[in-house]
């Protein structure tokens, strides 16, 4: 066990939830309470196991850490390669944190087929962490798609009134994007084989392929589409409001908290190093779509009558800002963007959770059905207010740091006007969020039934306050996180800029430290390779 936790820590972190899900199969269908708490305990153990990733992470090192590599399908070069850098570290911890939070919330609110719900949730966690840790493109794709299935069930079985439509739309949209990415991955591997004679799906190997600009553009498009749908980037966002609104609270927390980030993560981890020229060429488009997302999301959010839909559209806006940071591509903007992903996970996670708290009591998400309940549920109100302030970027809380870095970083990039335009989104976010708080918690109390609104439960309170504590922590000590990000962000930037300069021959670029083949390879004619 000791060596397992030493040498194969990432494997343990990835598959512990699956093991928990397998054990849950042994529970009788009727033992729903036991199943709930068991799943929660598994997720807490999982969080505990993932802590060493944080503590043992070498801040000074730029490359991948906790690397594991073994063969999977050796004859075609597919390997089981895991490893994390600062970016994946943060998102993995966000995942292992939000999963117990969601499950703790669900303990008192999921009644139907509890065992299946817990199994789906744990499998989803494996899929998410696996995608964040995979360094082999085939392996990544497997985890990436595996995530869809549990989420489809979580929305479709435990969701709201229009859950079927939302689940189907979610599945088809995400799948549509990733299928083309699948072909692009195959193309890269085949090209690698044609150029070097060896099969490989490792990111580090494939990132050194020299591709013609037009090929790069096509492949980049295939990858970017998959990731843009996941983020979602305007105009591919239409699945999001439906999925977020109809998903059960726990599902919304995970969707907003982690799943969306995987789009941005995939872009940073795969699309940028694989197709640096294309990525830089199309960066203006990426940033422009981000800016549109910021403003469009904010304006539509303001028009919503449904609390959950409002928070969902606020996600479009916030993720838009992250995309702006990615498009700007300065170190500051990138750091801010990654930090902002974590911040959004915490604040939106908390908002969905607290909306869920209200919904479970009144069974309506209509903003108009509330009003004046601040005095009746003061604790809920206080927590909601903190989450709101974090979401709109109040200094002292986490959101401010992320937004500030993105805007400053973008300002210093060639695309100065993006910062100006995106900053309006920050203002707009204050408009729609504060008016939400105003209409739900302050305003005069008009609905008599709200007088008896019960206060937040202990389990819900614990779940929400964990997030609030983290908001304050990141707000006060952002450097704990930024220090872990810095080297990784710079490595991403280097992988793009140097590869551009060095483009020559069959393979190019600096080593990412984990490749099967070593340069330089003579460029052989493709005919000599294929049997």
């Amino acid at each position, binding site marked *: 066990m000791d060596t397992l936790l030493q040498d194969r820590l990432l494997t343990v972190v990835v598959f512990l939830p699956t093991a928990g899900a397998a054990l849950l199969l042994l529970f009788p*269908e009727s033992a729903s309470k036991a199943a709930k708490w068991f799943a929660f305990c598994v997720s807490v153990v999982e969080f505990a196991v993932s802590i060493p990733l944080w503590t043992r992470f070498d801040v000074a090192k730029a490359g991948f850490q906790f690397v594991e590599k073994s*063969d*999977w*399908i*050796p*004859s*075609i070069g597919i390997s089981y390669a895991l490893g994390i850098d600062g970016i994946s570290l943060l998102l993995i911890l966000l995942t292992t944190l939000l999963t117990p939070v969601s499950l703790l919330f669900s303990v008192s609110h999921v009644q139907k*087929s509890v065992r299946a719900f817990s199994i789906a949730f744990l499998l989803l966690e494996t899929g998410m962490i696996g995608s964040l840790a995979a360094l082999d493109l*085939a392996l990544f*794709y*497997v*985890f*990436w*798609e*595996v995530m*869809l*299935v549990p989420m*489809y*069930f979580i929305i*479709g*079985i435990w969701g709201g009134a229009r*859950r*079927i439509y939302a*689940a*189907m739309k979610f*599945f*088809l949209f995400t*799948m*549509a994007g990733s*299928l*083309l990415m*699948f*072909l692009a991955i*195959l*193309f890269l*591997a*085949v090209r690698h*084989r044609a150029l070097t004679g060896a099969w490989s799906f490792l990111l580090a190997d494939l990132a050194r392929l020299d591709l013609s600009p037009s090929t790069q553009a096509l492949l980049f498009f295939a990858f970017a589409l998959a990731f843009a749908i996941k983020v979602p980037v305007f105009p591919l966002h239409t699945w999001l409001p439906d999925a977020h609104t109809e998903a059960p609270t726990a599902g919304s927390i995970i969707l907003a908290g982690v799943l969306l980030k995987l789009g941005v993560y995939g872009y940073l981890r795969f699309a940028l190093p694989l197709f640096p020229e294309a990525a830089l060429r199309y960066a203006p488009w990426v940033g422009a779509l981000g800016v549109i997302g910021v403003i469009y999301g904010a304006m539509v959010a303001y028009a919503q009558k449904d609390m959950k839909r409002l928070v969902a559209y606020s996600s479009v806006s916030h993720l838009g800002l992250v995309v702006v940071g990615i498009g700007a591509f300065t170190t500051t903007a990138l750091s801010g963007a990654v930090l902002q992903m974590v911040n959004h996970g915490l604040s939106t996670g908390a908002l969905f959770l607290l909306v869920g708290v209200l919904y479970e009591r009144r069974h309506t998400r209509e903003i108009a059905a509330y009003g004046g309940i601040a005095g009746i549920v003061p604790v809920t109100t206080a927590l909601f207010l903190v989450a709101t302030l974090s979401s709109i970027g109040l200094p002292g809380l986490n959101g401010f740091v992320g937004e500030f870095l993105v805007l400053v970083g973008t300002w210093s990039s060639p695309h100065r006007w993006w910062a100006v335009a995106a900053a309006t989104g920050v203002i707009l976010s204050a408009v729609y969020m504060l008016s939400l708080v105003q209409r739900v918690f302050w305003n005069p109390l008009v609905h008599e039934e709200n007088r008896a609104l019960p206060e937040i439960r202990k389990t819900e309170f614990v779940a929400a306050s964990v997030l609030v504590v983290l908001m304050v922590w990141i707000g006060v000590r952002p450097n704990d996180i930024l220090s872990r990000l810095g080297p990784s962000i710079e490595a991403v930037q280097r992988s793009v800029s140097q590869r551009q300069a060095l483009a020559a021959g069959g393979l190019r670029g600096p080593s990412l430290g984990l490749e099967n083949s070593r340069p330089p390879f003579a460029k052989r004619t493709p*005919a000599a390779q*294929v*049997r």
Partner: protein
Amino acid sequence: MNFLQFGPDDLAAIAPEIVLAAMGGLIVLLEAFAPATRRWFATLSLAGIAGSLYFLRRAPAGASFAGHYDTSALAVAVGLFLGATAAVAVLVASSYLERAGEERGEFYALLLWGHLGVSLMTRGLDLLIVFIGLETLSLSFYVLASFFRRTEASSEAGLKYFLTGAFSSAFTLYGIVFLFGKSGGILIANLARPGFAADPLVTLALLLLLVGFGFKMSLAPFHAWAPDVYQGMPTPAVAYLSVAPKGASLVVLYRVLSAVFQDGMPDRFRTGVAALAILSMTLGNVVALAQRDVKRLLAYSGIAHMGYVTIALAVFGWESLAAVIVYFFAYLVANAGAFAAVAALYRDETRPHPIGLLAGEGRRAPFRAAVFTLCFLSLAGIPATAGFIGKFFVFKAAIERGFYALAVIGVLNSLVSIGYYLKVVYFMYMRDSVEPEGPPPMAMADRLALSLCAAGILALGIFPAPLWALARRAAETLPFASP
């Protein structure tokens, strides 16, 4: 050479088929003279299949009967695939026939004989053996299709399958005759001669074979029989018919084409095959979206799947054959598993199988519904299932040879397919049951069949390396021209 002269090695080579024939005969005799032994028929059939596989593994290497009969790695790999399909069908049949009140030995005997025919098809290195195998298969399944004599749908299925089957056999036979006339022999190896492929009559013969075997594969536009036949045929027989003969037909096509096309597949021929693939995928998937009957839905899904494997045929070469073999193993566990679940989930066999009746089964029959869902995920090609691995290798082969358009059309089609696969899942898990009467109680054999298929889907999906090695060894035995 004299066909009647053969040695012990030849006997050992054909022992797998002898075992099947004998076991079928034994079951028919027992049915006639000792009907009390009926409950052992399924076990006997399984023993026959297992025995046949045992002899297949032990068959002497190389071709036997003076090069007319194959015992190579290809024969072994395909035999394993066929035997596994037959085993699932038998397991499903035991409780299914009992529920339907038609527990008669003929079912098992015909299944074994049909299985024997398919084996002959895949192992014959001469076109006559292939044709005899094809006819043995067809005759057995004509009867199996109308096995429920008193049910109208079953009689209709039998008649439809018979008419279209006879029609398609004629195409196949014409093709064989032309090839015989041009090459002067029935050995497939004789077809491998320079310049042979350029002869228009040979091209015509190959097209006729493509049509004939296209019928058996239910490849569009030769697919029209499949939905009706599947609907009326006893479900365990469909589990076999929808998998094994399709794989066998493709293996025969590969054998013939790899011999004729010494210099690779000509472009015009390839265009035709690719067109069939695109048509079959698209038509199968689009029409499946509109189906309300589970068996018809699976029929159209099968038509679409034959389109995906035909992509591999258009790509050609040993990688593509290896991909086809992997694809068929994946298709076996998922599709036979799906039919096993259909057999175990529907109570009344004399009526159609509307999807709506599955509503709420996710809670009432959690195990069966879960396996059914897994089968659909695999058919849809979701990663970590066998189906993904099958598609992976097919699309990889296509991209390797530069057929990007086929690959793109293929993946877009699998997106469409998700629409109808998830429809069934939706009914099982997201709708409340309409039928007061739940699904029938689950027999041990059903549970075993479903568990095996589920385990196969996950095992092949997560650890595909051994299967790929097997398929590769098998595919390399054919004399493909190097590109």
